[in-house]
């Protein structure tokens, strides 16, 4: 059933059960959010998305309030604006303002909304909590002096990855994100997938591997497919001066249909080999105990010739094929086909079977 409501003077028709935030966005209102993430369970806690329903005593968080028939909503009333400004000031009062060296600079929600609402400083004297977590892991930087407690990382860890490595510790103003017993990630169920980095709206969680190599907002983004396994996750390479300086992910289901932004530790953090001088970039053929560079045609031709020779001399069962999970199902199919139909042996195995 459809319901009708008025948002900023515009009439909108939405299906029953639609949250106000979607109805507002349908009406063209730009609703700011921190804790809201369409891929995660609702929290309704940052209170940035508040709007004013006419005749209601208080503002409501539009992300968790279902639209009702006949509602009249204002998304930029003086109360709404004041409320959003104060929420930003409250966040700023405990936020380590080191934007100039922050990896998130340029794509930080806190920065963007402060710009939008003209919040240059906080009226509330706060103190940074000194919650920076000196975590020895090589992947995830945990600077909770920048944390705004939106809990998206907690929900992503639970709902996307299923690791449940982090949660909220302590209460009130002292609440913070932590592992069990406030330890390091390596001693927790963390699998270093970095989904927490992906959903963090500020610079509290960032990649140690990409740190200092280029701010994400200023890098070129190139979509590619991860080669680590046959899943085929979409990676978003961060490219600067024709060099890969980081990997982020794209959550658009059209662009990232397999993983929708989720990656594993290898895909998100295991890319620094790309620029290694030790990397093989061309086939090598060993002659007289020494490697020399060769073309693909030459190398493949040599391999085929040798395989043929072995088969002729010792029979097809003297050969076996050991295949890999790094290639796709289709490629694995072709590999066994090559073995069975072309070479004539059933000696086929695969690393995932061990």
């Amino acid at each position, binding site marked *: 059933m459809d319901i009708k409501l008025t948002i900023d003077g515009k009439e909108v028709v939405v299906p029953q059960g639609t949250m106000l935030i979607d109805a507002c966005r349908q009406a063209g209102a730009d609703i700011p959010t921190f804790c809201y993430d369409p891929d995660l369970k609702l929290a*309704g*806690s940052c*209170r940035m998305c508040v709007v004013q329903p006419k005749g209601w005593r208080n503002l409501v968080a539009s992300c968790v309030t279902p639209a009702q028939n006949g509602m009249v909503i204002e998304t930029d009333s003086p109360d709404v604006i*004041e409320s959003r400004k104060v929420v930003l000031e*409250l*966040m700023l*009062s405990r936020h380590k303002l080191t934007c100039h060296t922050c990896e998130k600079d340029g794509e930080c929600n806190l920065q963007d909304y402060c710009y939008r609402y003209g919040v240059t400083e906080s009226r*509330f004297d*706060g103190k940074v909590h000194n919650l920076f977590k000196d975590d020895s892991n090589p992947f995830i930087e945990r600077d909770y002096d920048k944390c705004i407690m939106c809990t998206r990382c907690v929900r992503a860890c639970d709902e996307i990855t299923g690791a449940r490595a982090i949660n909220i510790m302590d209460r*009130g103003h002292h609440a913070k994100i932590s592992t069990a017993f406030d330890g390091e990630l390596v001693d927790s169920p963390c699998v270093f997938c970095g989904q927490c980095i992906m959903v963090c709206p500020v610079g509290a969680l960032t990649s140690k591997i990409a740190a200092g190599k280029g701010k994400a907002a200023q890098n070129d983004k190139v979509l590619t497919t991860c080669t680590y396994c046959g899943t085929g996750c979409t990676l978003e390479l961060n490219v600067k001066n024709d060099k890969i300086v980081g990997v982020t992910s794209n959550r658009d289901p059209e662009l990232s249909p397999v993983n929708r932004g989720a990656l594993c530790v290898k895909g998100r953090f295991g890319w620094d080999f790309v620029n290694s001088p030790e990397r093989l970039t061309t086939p090598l053929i060993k002659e007289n105990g020494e490697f020399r560079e060769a073309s693909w045609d030459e190398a493949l031709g040599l391999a085929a010739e040798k395989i043929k020779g072995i088969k002729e001399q010792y029979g097809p069962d003297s050969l076996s094929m050991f295949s890999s999970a790094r290639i796709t199902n289709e490629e694995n199919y072709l590999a066994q086909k090559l073995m069975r139909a072309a070479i004539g042996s059933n000696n086929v195995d695969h690393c995932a079977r061990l």
Partner: protein
Amino acid sequence: MAQEYRVLLEYADKINPESASDYIKVGGYKGLEKARSMNPKDLTEEVKKSGLRGRGGAGFNAGMKWSFVPQYPETKYVVCNLDEGEPGTYKDRIICQKNAQALLEGMAICGYAIGSNQGYIYCRGEYPFVVELLKNAIGNAKESGALGEFNIEVRMGAGAYVCGEETALIESIEGHRGEPRFKPPFPGVEGLWRMPTVVNNVETFACLPFILTKGAEWFAGIGAKSYPGTKVLTLTGDIENATYFEVPTDYLLRDVIYELGGGVKGGKKLKAVQVGGTSGAFIPPQNLDTPIDFDSMGAIGAALGSGAVFVMDETRDIVDIVNRIAKFFEHESCGQCTPCREGTFHCKEIMEKINNGRGSLKDIENLKVLTRVMVKASLCGLGQAAPIPITSTLTHFEYEYLRKLM
């Protein structure tokens, strides 16, 4: 002369609260018997008709609340809120200690109305002796057969004020962090373990047996029309008789203090009275001739809340008291939503600054902005009500703030 009117506490200290047979001797469990002879729908209608409104502070019509519970799910729950964490409030403890069986009977009546056989009592962690008492009372009632199929379990809180908020209470029973849920969905539709749940206060449940035995009209005729019945009040602070009283709801605040309360301690003058617990408004002496019922208190910008009456004499330092209250809320905020998590902290910081003589007019201005946003934008009642002591004293006692400024 205004007098007490005891309904829930009529047999206080005359019966053993743990004993079902004692209770039955004075007419107990007749209400449940009557309820079970009725159609559950008619029972809910009867409770609606009595005008009984929640005694925990929100003042929602109890029968109305029950009527939101859908019929179809098999599993439903009745939850009693005994997380009496509001400082200065101890009426639920008194009701349990004087008449625990009435609470159990009330829960069973509610269970019958909504089609639930399972009740939970969530008891404040600081009341271990009440947990003992209730467990004995439940055992005794089950043994006597008075509760029939209806079961009641006691769960103990761990000392968080916010768990008095019904959805945080539910989270706590489920074993999670005591954090309020956003509403809707309301507990009546999706509550404990995501099943339809009625959460009512101890006093609300304890009224039910009497409504059933004496009739909805009888109850609706007591006290204020829009908030009928009696209310158990607990008096604390600078008052001669710092104890509890049960009064009809049209009772005047002045009479609470000067008749039953015996006046301000030591014959001093009254400076302010805070009704409804620590999140209540500070009421100046000129508003004393207000009935204590929900709507009359609302009309003067106050709230009946839990029925705590905290009296302050002329020598008390309002700013110092509010500073202490601000500390309390800073400590008790669960930390979930931004306005409350950071707001209660900054309220405390600013109050401390003013109280220590380091504040300026700018601080008062900031306090006003901050409290306005907390009231309007916080997720639950804690953040929305925490600023009320500040805003009400800024309205009625601003001079106390101004004289402490730099």
